[in-house]
């Protein structure tokens, strides 16, 4: 029985050795290849975290692209912080949408002494990771975490540039209320995101005096909604809201129409994509859904063109926000004349910035003041924006574009 000891110590040694390797290997980000081109510049690292694998990897990549675009643009202008020539470098990490991995990756970024973080994508990973950033004093701006808790923890470093669930929920609920439903059914996918949003919708509905049926739930993998829908159908609701992603929302809508349900359907931002039309087919027509923020189509034309030029694809959902988040971090550093988080954090909190997603200012908690919500309807297989809700007012896309174009120039 000498084997175990040798093997054990051997495995420890190899583990340590391998870790050494892990550290020596340079991060393969394209930015690092560009770095030697400007040897005089000090490198300032900015982290981005989102799921690059798993069910919503396409959204994670979209977020990363937004941040990457911002940093590449700034680097092209030979940026300065104070009187120091700098080069920004993006450290893009994959959290797999798993809080445990999210924390490990967060620690990795803190170890690498990044100056600021853009991310994470999911509220479920952003909230626990923010405790690590808070302890390290590094600012974190999420472009997509919509759960209110993120900025309710009292962390000075936590910001978001996207609307919260308790802003988005009422918006889509009010839109559904326009048709004066008497009974509403609410379904969710039993995830932090789906349930959180559904709760906000329910609150608004109840406040408006509408009868809300007992909550029905599936999971984030459910494709068989027939039993739930049959039960709901038996109570003849006038409208149905679903809090969940497109992969589950598509089958839900398809099966509802198969069961001859005539109710108006409303979904949240996770299921507010063109994928819906593909998955639910003709059944998807007329679906109303909301996105936290302004529609990608309404984002600055400059951003859209630049994104397409850089990545050769259309932006999907939150990239204008991560783009703005990265630019906000850089702008604050430049204004404060320092990339030291302690120095530029107060400046960041006072930001007043016109970005691709409109004017951004933070309130005391770190939430965006007056965040916009957009309502879409599904027409001819595409989600098309029908209204933008800002400060409680509902604007059409054209009205919004006019209003936004005015002050921006």
């Amino acid at each position: 029985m000498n084997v175990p000891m040798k093997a054990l110590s051997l495995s420890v040694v190899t583990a340590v050795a391998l870790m050494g390797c892990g550290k020596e290997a340079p991060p393969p980000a394209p930015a690092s290849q560009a770095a030697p081109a400007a040897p005089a510049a000090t490198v300032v690292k900015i982290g981005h975290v989102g799921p690059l694998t798993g069910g919503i990897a396409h959204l994670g990549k979209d977020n990363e692209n937004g941040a990457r675009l911002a940093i590449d643009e700034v680097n092209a202008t030979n940026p300065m912080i104070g009187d120091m020539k700098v080069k920004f470098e993006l450290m893009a990490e994959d959290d797999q949408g798993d809080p445990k991995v999210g924390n490990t990756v967060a620690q990795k970024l803190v170890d690498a002494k990044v100056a600021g973080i853009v991310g994470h994508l999911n509220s479920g990973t952003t909230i626990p990771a923010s405790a690590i950033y808070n302890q390290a004093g590094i600012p974190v701006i999420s472009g997509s975490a919509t759960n209110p808790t993120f900025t309710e923890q009292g962390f000075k470093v936590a910001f978001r540039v996207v609307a919260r669930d308790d802003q988005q929920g009422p918006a889509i609920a009010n839109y559904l209320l326009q048709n004066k439903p008497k009974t509403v059914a609410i379904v969710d996918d039993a995830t932090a995101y789906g349930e959180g949003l559904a709760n906000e919708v329910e609150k608004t509905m109840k406040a408006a005096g509408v009868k809300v049926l007992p909550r029905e739930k599936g999971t984030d993998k459910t494709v068989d909604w027939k039993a739930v829908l049959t039960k709901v159908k038996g109570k003849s609701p006038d409208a149905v809201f679903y809090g969940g992603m497109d992969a589950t929302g598509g089958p839900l809508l398809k099966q509802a129409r198969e069961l001859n349900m005539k109710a108006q359907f409303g979904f949240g931002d996770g299921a507010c994509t063109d994928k819906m039309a593909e998955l639910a087919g003709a059944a998807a027509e007329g679906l109303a859904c909301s996105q936290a923020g302004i529609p990608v189509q309404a984002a600055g034309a400059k951003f859209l063109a630049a994104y397409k030029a850089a990545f050769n694809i259309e932006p999907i959902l939150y990239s204008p926000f991560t783009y703005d988040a990265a630019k906000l971090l850089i702008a604050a550093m430049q204004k404060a004349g320092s990339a030291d988080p302690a120095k530029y954090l107060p400046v960041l909190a006072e930001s007043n910035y016109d970005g691709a997603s409109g004017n951004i200012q933070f309130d005391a908690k770190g939430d965006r003041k007056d965040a916009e919500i957009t309502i879409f309807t599904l027409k001819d297989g595409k989600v098309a924006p029908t209204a933008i809700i800002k400060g409680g007012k509902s604007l059409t896309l054209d009205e919004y574009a006019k209003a936004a174009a005015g002050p921006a120039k």
Partner: protein
Amino acid sequence: MSFLKGRTGLIILGIALLILPFMLGMAGTAWVRIMNFAVLYVLLALGLNIVVGYAGLLDLGYIAFFAVGAYVYALLASPHFGLHLPFWIILPIGAFVACIAGMVLGAPTLRLRGDYLAIVTLGFGEIVRIFMNNLSNPINITNGPKGVNLIDPFHIGPINFAKTDTIAGLDVSGPIKYYYFLLLVLIGVIIINRRLQDSRIGRAWVAIREDEMAAKAAGINTRNIKLLAFAMGASFGGISGGMFAAIQGFVSPESFILNESIMVLAMVVLGGMGNIWGVVAGAIVLAFVPEILRYTVEPAQMALFGHTLIEPEVLRMLIFGSALVLTMRFRPAGFWPETRHKRELVEAAEK
């Protein structure tokens, strides 16, 4: 076992383990965290080893006990209920609750064997997770899928495990403190395991594993002894869960999915069921391999092909899957099988 007799070996190992977090810390605190998770997995694997390795009861829902321990800690030391009990009170409570859960699972399943037991334990694990995910309504107990946040870290006197202290010029970060605590627990658990293995109870477990009828005939109270295996295994899971909650500062049901149970089982089987050192090694290898691959797969591809041919995450999983298959192909009893453990679980082909 001669392992502990080799005094120089022990001293070297001891010193290596003591300075390990600082060496890892040089590569980044992230590696200390990864090490801590590896130790947590070792604890879990050792707990499961009692059930699967010693008593031969195939348990596919083991992560449920980990979850129970984690939630007990989270609910008793967080703003969720406004309770902030110290860890040395909660950890035993967590172990106790998990132990009860273990017996609740064990009692009705005593008659089941092999694969039937596997599916029932699997179902039990899923049930526990689903309850945690849904007990926010109609009365909020677990806070549902949102999970419980801002969980208190360990405090020992003035030492806060979430903060960095400087001791004699050395920066001792939070994860390093947890590492030493985990190491202490691990040593304790290993000692308990070794004592159990060579005790009457340990031999009774093995007897049941090899032939339950014969064990019964030999006068072993198989019912109680099997329940004891479930209870002991579950308690270890509960303690690990409590420490997990404190280290993470956040728990949510998605950390306790079926895949985690399968992972822990793979650690036990891969290392060598029934052999403590095999299980320890199996857990460390399986916990580290994915992380090492995370740091190396992409640079390796860049070096070989100049660009990323296969996405690192996918390649990582492919390598991992192949490793499981190949290991079993060439070492079906694990890397370091238990010496007396020739036949493992009751073998059908033996009939």
